[in-house]
């Protein structure tokens, strides 16, 4: 999965436009960032993008930048 696709899918999970999903975006500002939203994000990372992260990783992320820090190096292309 490339970075563009990851951002598009992640934006859908947190219910914002892609343009709003900057590294500074605070995840808890999204009403969709509940248990299911976090599980969907883990599924996106683990199953769709095939990037292995610690299960509790998503719970430690405060911003989208925190997510990208771990995920971006393993995304293929832009």
């Amino acid at each position: 999965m490339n970075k563009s696709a990851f951002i598009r899918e992640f934006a859908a999970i947190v219910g914002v436009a892609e343009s709003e999903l900057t590294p500074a975006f605070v995840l808890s500002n999204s009403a969709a960032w509940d248990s299911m939203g976090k599980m969907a994000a883990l599924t996106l990372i683990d199953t769709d993008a095939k990037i292995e992260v610690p299960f509790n990783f998503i719970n430690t992320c405060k911003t989208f930048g925190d997510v990208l820090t771990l995920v971006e190096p393993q995304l293929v292309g832009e």
Partner: protein
Amino acid sequence: MSSLKFNVELGGIGLRPVMIGDSHLIVRLRNGYASRRFLNTGATSNRDQEQWLQAYFERKARGLEHYFIIAHADRDVGAVRIYEIDAAQASFKWGSWVIESGTPPLVAFVSAVLVYDFAFDVLRLETALFEVVAENANVIRFHQGFGAALRGEPDTHASFELKKATYIGLRSRFLARIGLAHLGAPSDAPS
């Protein structure tokens, strides 16, 4: 908190049977659920919920349904239901799945494992058939990641199917993923 015995439990997260005294809790969980728009219209008062539960207990006695409170670290944090159990088809549906805001995502994940453990291992059913509101994209993604297959094209709802054999094949990977692989098979003491 409750000291009621769990039907199934894994890593400190368990499903315990709903009791009539849980009416207030269920109303609070459903009405406080951020995604409640995806739930069927339910009771908004304690009295209505109690009446609903009385009818549920009759269905449970006939083997048609099981309603659970999800507990984590001695706190009641959610609810989930197995329903429309079809003994002839060995199938079931599940849903009414609500988890309190702020609960770690691990609880959501393990509660799904426990639903399947109870249905496939304790009730000896073979197929999960369930629907999710089509707009509830996050839950749909979760179920797909859990191995459930979409049946047909979604319209207002996405219909899923998960066979026991598929689940059994994935379960050990799920548990390893969350560091619980060493716990093996669930405790199974149906009420």
